[in-house]
C-alpha cells in the first residue's frame, strides 16, 4: 500500500510541468498583488537611494534578482540539512556569499556603475526581501519553486525600481537611460531638483502604492 502511494506521488511530481499554474503564480504574484515593495513594503531603503537614474537602478534590480534567485536555490537545496538553531546565520552566510560575488563582479565589469551603487550592493545582505523569501519560502519548498519565487520577487522589486527611476530621471534630469530626451526634441527642460532627492522617490513610491491599491481594491487588514 505504502509503496503504491509513493509511486503515485512520484508520478504526480513528474507530471507537474515546470511552469504549472501554481509555479507561474510564484512569478506573477510578486509583480502585482504580492509585490515586495508596494504591498509588503520591504526593500524601500534602496528603492529610494539608487533610483535617480535608470541605468544604476537596472543594475541594482538585476543584482538583487540574482541574489534572491540563487540564495533561494541554495537554501532550498540545503533546507533539510540546516540545523534550525542556526538557520538565520546559515541564510545570512549564503546571502552574503552571493552579494559579495555580485559586488566583486560589478567592480570588475561595471566599475562606474558600482561606484554609483556604492554601499547599496553590499546592503542587499540586509534587504528584507532576500531574508524574507528565504525564511518564508525557500526553507519549506523544493528548489525549482524556490528559484521561481526568488526570480519573481527580484523582478517585482526591479519593476518598481525601474518605474520610480523612470519618473525621477525624466523629471529630474530630463533624460532616459542618460539620453537627453527633451534636448533631442528641441525643448528646453529645467530639471526638477526634488526628483533627484530621496524625498522625490518617496512621493513617487507613495503614488505607485496608491494607484496599485486602488486598482486592486486592496485594503489594509485591521
Amino acid at each position, binding site marked *: 500500500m505504502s509503496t503504491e502511494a509513493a509511486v503515485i506521488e512520484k508520478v504526480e511530481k513528474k507530471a507537474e510541468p515546470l511552469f504549472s499554474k501554481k509555479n507561474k503564480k510564484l512569478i506573477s504574484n510578486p509583480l502585482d498583488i504580492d509585490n515586495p515593495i508596494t504591498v509588503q513594503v520591504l526593500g524601500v531603503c534602496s528603492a529610494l537611494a539608487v533610483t535617480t537614474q535608470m541605468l544604476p537602478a537596472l543594475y541594482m534590480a538585476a543584482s538583487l534578482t540574482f541574489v534572491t534567485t540563487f540564495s533561494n536555490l541554495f537554501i532550498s537545496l540545503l533546507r*533539510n*540539512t*540546516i*540545523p*534550525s*538553531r*542556526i538557520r538565520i*546565520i*546559515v541564510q545570512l*552566510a*549564503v546571502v*552574503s*556569499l552571493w552579494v*559579495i*560575488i555580485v559586488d*566583486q*563582479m560589478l*567592480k*570588475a*565589469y561595471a*566599475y562606474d556603475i558600482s561606484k554609483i551603487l556604492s554601499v547599496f550592493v553590499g546592503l542587499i545582505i540586509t534587504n528584507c526581501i532576500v531574508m524574507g523569501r528565504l525564511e518564508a519560502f525557500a526553507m519549506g519548498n523544493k528548489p525549482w519553486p524556490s528559484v521561481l519565487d526568488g526570480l519573481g520577487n527580484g523582478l517585482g522589486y526591479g519593476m518598481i525600481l525601474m518605474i520610480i527611476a523612470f519618473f525621477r530621471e525624466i523629471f529630474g534630469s530630463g533624460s532616459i537611460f542618460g539620453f537627453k530626451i527633451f534636448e533631442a526634441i528641441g525643448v528646453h527642460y529645467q530639471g526638477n531638483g526634488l526628483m533627484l*532627492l530621496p524625498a522625490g522617490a518617496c512621493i513617487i513610491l507613495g503614488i505607485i502604492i496608491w494607484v496599485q491599491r486602488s486598482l486592486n481594491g486592496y485594503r489594509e487588514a485591521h
Partner: protein
Amino acid sequence: MQTKNADYNVRQSNLYIVLYAAGLTIVCGAALAFASISLKDRQEANVALEEKTNILSTVMTLEDGANIEAIYAKRVRAFVIDYNGTVKEGMTPKNVSVASEYKKKPQERLLPVYEIVSEADANQVEAVVLPVYGYGLWNNIFGFVALASDFNTILGVSFGHIGETPGLGARISSTEIQERYKNKSIFDNGQLVSVMMQKGEGMDYSGDTHKVDGMSGATLTAKGVNNMLQEYFGCYNKYLQKQPIALN
C-alpha cells in the same frame, strides 16, 4: 517517520551544528577567495584607469570614450620626489601608495608628481598634477590638483572621498565644487598660502585668489579639504620653489 525524527534529532546536536557551521564557512570562504583572486586583475585595472582619468581630467576635458591610456602615455611624465624636491631615481608613482605615505611624517613622504607635457613638444611642461590626501569628516579624502606652468595657478582639481555625507560633504567630488578652485593661486609673493574654502555658501570670492566659496552644511569636510591642500602644498613646496619660473 522514525527516520525523519532521528534525522531531526541529529540536526539538533551541538556537534552537528558546529561541524555544519564550520563546513559552510569553509565552502563560502573558498568561493569568495576564488572570486576575489580571479577578478582581481580586472578590478585593479579599473582602479588604475580611474586614477589616470582623474589625473588627466584636472587639466583637460575628456570626451566620452576617449582613449585614456593613449593620452596618458603621450602627455604624462610621472616621477617621484622627496620632501626636499629631489627626484627619486628608479621609482615610479606605481610603487608609491599615497594613502600609506600619508601616514608618515610630511618630511619622510615619497611624493608622486605627474607632469603634463605639451602635445607637440614632449619637453615643454604645460602643467603639473600633484596628488593630495587627507581626512574629511568621516573618512579619508583624496584627489589631484593641477598647477599651470607658472607652478602657482590652479588649473583644475579632482577630489574623491570614501564616506562623506551624500548631498553635503560628498559634494567635493562634484564638478560644481571643483570648478570653484580654477584660476586660484597658492603662492603670494613667493610665500605659500594655499587656497581656503570658506564657511557658508553663495558668497563671491572671485576677487580673492586664495579663497573659494564654501559648502553649506559641510564646513567640517571643507576644513578637511583645506588641511589636505595646505599640508600637501607644504610637502611639495620645496619642489615648486625650485622650478625655473620665478614665483610672483
